[in-house]
């Protein structure tokens, strides 16, 4: 860990301005991801702007009938919120499938969206990694890649986004609200929020330098059976090999977003029309452009099977 300076921001705009002003500055929320990365010198911020005091920790109804989730709402509180459990059960279930109780107590909504990949080479500073050190190469491409991405990948990076929460938010069409250093706010749809790696895998989101997430809004409830199915090598406390967030209506139509396969939660709306026809046709469309490695080729059938499991569960 390198030495850094630290300040507590009082307002959102102040926080954004502070980060924009100081080269190498970063926000810190729960710190459950950032601090681990700093200890390994994967992240080396020179200045931390603590956003925990910004009072962005409430969940409010929106005029449209949806929910506005403050950026600092803890994962535990979000998962337990009565409205979330009733109307957006897939989100609650996704949160509870992630990390551990202790971590969820600390982890925030914004921090969760911005958690970084779990590619093992990203964590070993002795190894080339384009995401950690642009231009150094990708060790995973011809290395150990069982956990890594199969679709939307590039020759520069095949990492996945490890968030469970984001997969559910993708299925729910969430919208990220931000404030920029100049004080101007904007909204970014969750579909546009995370980027594909392309040849700049170190750029992971649509956020600009200093841009602060203030909230995530959910549109009015869509009903349906809401299922989050996370498949992993052990029963708990592991990142997904593949996960599926689904909303399935009685007539078999619905939505599916897939985690563990790409640099972002993976959803192709056009494929969803075929949900009543079963998992195979849907998966064929979702993974039409998949480029798995030898190690992770199993993820293709696993996606199909997990979507199949979700459809069966919805019918039962």
């Amino acid at each position, binding site marked *: *860990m*390198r*030495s850094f300076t630290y300040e507590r921001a009082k307002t959102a705009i102040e926080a954004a301005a502070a980060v924009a002003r100081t080269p190498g500055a970063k926000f810190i929320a729960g710190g459950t991801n950032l601090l681990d990365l700093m*200890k*390994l*010198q994967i992240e080396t911020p020179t200045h931390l702007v603590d956003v925990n005091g910004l009072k962005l920790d409430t969940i409010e109804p929106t005029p449209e009938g949806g929910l506005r989730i403050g950026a600092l709402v803890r994962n535990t509180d979000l998962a337990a919120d009565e409205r979330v459990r009733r109307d957006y059960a897939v989100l609650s279930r996704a949160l509870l499938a992630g990390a551990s109780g202790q971590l969820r107590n600390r982890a925030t909504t914004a921090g969760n969206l911005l958690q970084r990949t*779990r590619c*093992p*080479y990203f*964590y*070993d*500073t*002795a*190894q080339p990694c384009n995401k950690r050190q642009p231009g150094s190469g990708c*060790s995973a491409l*011809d*290395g*150990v890649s*069982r956990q890594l991405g199969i679709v939307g990948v590039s020759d520069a990076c095949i990492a996945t986004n490890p968030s469970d929460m984001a997969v559910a938010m993708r299925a729910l069409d969430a919208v990220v609200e931000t404030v920029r250093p100049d004080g101007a706010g904007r909204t970014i749809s969750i579909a546009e929020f995370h980027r594909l790696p392309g040849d700049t895998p170190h750029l992971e989101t649509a956020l600009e330098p200093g841009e602060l997430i203030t909230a995530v809004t959910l549109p009015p409830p869509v009903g349906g059976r809401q299922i989050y199915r996370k*498949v*992993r*090598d*052990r*029963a*708990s*406390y*592991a*990142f997904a*090999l593949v996960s599926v967030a689904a909303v399935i209506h009685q007539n078999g139509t619905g939505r599916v977003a897939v985690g563990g396969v790409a640099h972002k939660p993976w959803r192709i709306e056009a494929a969803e029309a075929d949900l009543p026809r*079963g*998992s*195979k046709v849907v998966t064929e469309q979702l993974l039409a452009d998949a480029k798995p490695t030898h190690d992770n080729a*199993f993820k293709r*059938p*696993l996606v*199909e*099977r*997990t*979507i*199949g*499991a979700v*459809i*069966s569960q919805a019918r039962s």
Partner: protein
Amino acid sequence: MRFDTPATTNPIDQLKVVGRPTDRIDGRHKTTGTAPYAYERHDVVPDQAYGFVLGAAIAKGRIAAMLLDEAKAAPGVLAIVTTLDMPRLERGMMNAAYLFGGPVVQHYHQAVAVVVAETFEQARAAAYLIRVDYEPEAGKFDLAAEASNAPLVGDDSGEGSSGPPEVRVGDFEGAFKAAEVKHDESYTTPDESHAMMEPHATIAAWDGDQLTLWTSNQMIGWGKRSIAKILGIPAQNVRLDSPYIGGGFGGKLFIRADAVLAALGAKAAQRPVKLALTRPLIANNTTHRPATIQRIRIGANRDGIITAIAHESTSGNLADGKPETAVSQTRLLYAGANRLMAMRLAPLDLPEGNAMRAPGEAPGMMALEVAMDEMAEKLGLDPVQFRILNDTQVDPENPNRRFSHRDLVGCLRLGAERFGWDKRNAQPAQVRDGHWFVGMGVAAGFRNNLLTKSAARVRLDGQGVVAVETDMTDIGTGSYTIIAQTAAEMMGVALDKVVVRLGDSSFPVAAGSGGQWGANNSTAGVYAACVKLREAVVQRLGFNSADAVFADGAVRSGNRSVALAEAASAGELVAEDFIEYGDLAKTHQQSTFAAHFVEVGVDALTGEVRVRRMLAVCAAGRILNPKSARSQVIGAMTMGVGAALMEELAVDKRRGFFVNHDLAGYEVPVHADIPHQDVIFLDEVDPMSSPMKAKGVAELGICGVGAAVANAVYHATGIRVRDYPLTLDKLIGHLPEAV
């Protein structure tokens, strides 16, 4: 005390304290945070500075130069010692890798420097500023690719699972060829990491030429000799102290880089140095259980009698490293007139392979007991029955040599009854429970019982308190408690009148914790010392030693009874002795036995395997404390589930290292993976093992578990996976299609 004839009746047989399910006497310290682990010994010496180890960034090659200017100038830095500062240091006992010194890099994350600073954060930050100029060389990292050229190699380390390169009995090839039913398959097990909770950690302090290490080490006696050898100093100048150990599983049998670099750092900084290996270093810097490729051939007649059995195993290691002795149990477990066992060792440039919980037997049983399941099916026999049919009461290589006590059959029969084995459908893939395929599997468990010299000192004070001192360790196993039980039984006092001090090299040298030899040997050493103390007491009180009875805090003979404390009224009584063994272990084969039963569910769509219930029935001599023994066995069963379903150090075969080198990447079972476990101990004693009549259980508990899981997966699905771990990617291609 020399133990060379089978034990007869002795005070332990009273079983007033020994043999009872007793809470850990150190439990309160553990649960209240007052049992300090090595890194927490803030009070043992003042002015502790922090050390941080830098590991090599290449797998093989040389270090041309190291640039330290920036690191030296970093805040708080007190000293930096690098591998180029000194000629290559000697190795400790039984280790192949060099821990420090010299420009040659043997494996990834081998220590190349230690930075000492005022704080941990400063030491770490400075370590990242060291610039190392490497000259990498090509290495060999792929066991499968090297296996075909691997020469036959034996292991004569005497660590328990040793064996010659090849053993032949009868004419295996001829008998196999002629066999009516045959099985010939290969199995693989991956590299595994000990993944103990407490990392390797040491505080080192020099006082002139005297070195003290407050450390975390399973084998104090070995450790003392090893650190002296590594540093080139006399062993009497070294003291090790290791009273509490947060798990070891074989990873702390040896002196490792934490101890060596804490000592070197302390010398350079002229300050005590506290140092722990970081989690990312542990997988590649320390030792691991090496991967194996095993071929098993079994031939039998149609009635299921084995006529030929061969087990060949190939593993890899650094030069001077040992093979994984995965064939050792097959020499002893089943009858069969014609036998072939062989071990091959491929030179690899991966980190050092060495002992991990039940080295040899753990991976060996994972293969053998699946092969037995497959063979039973070919024969149309129930797998429990097939094993019983081929039981042996003698060493199959030397039929004149009997087992000291062997009740594998009893374990299998009782286990089958308790587990409801008779409800198992012989056909696989018949039972569905919702979206789960459900299956049951069985495997035998087997691990040798090892005898080794062990010493202790006992003191009796004027309050009637008995204190035991021995360098035996408690690695979470319960040694404190069984030693206290032994002393209480021998001296006729209550448990709360016994104090146990462990892990200090200034105490008499005990067996230490390894090879599941700790419990039997260390308590036998305490028994021997107590026999001497009893003699001293009897003499002091003027009793006739032959009929004195030690009970209820008093010594009685005829009508006369005197409080035990009286014997020490004029001053403490001290006795010291050791147990050493004659040739009972040569004339008889001493082993421990188990039957493992497992029920699993396999998700019909995703292939996720979840264990539903487990049972182990163990026959391992006298069980000294059923409560701590049960904890050992359920812990071992849990580790067996890990080996079966998820544990694997993933090798990057080009860069030459274990990639998943933290506990996020190296998955071990969590609570949710382990729903229900039962353990039954057969009520037995083994008078050949020691005056305690006990044997080990802690490694027995893992041996066979993985195979029982794999056999259950087969029974659930009809899919036979022969490559561990049985992750879902190896199953889904064979499962029914999705909707």
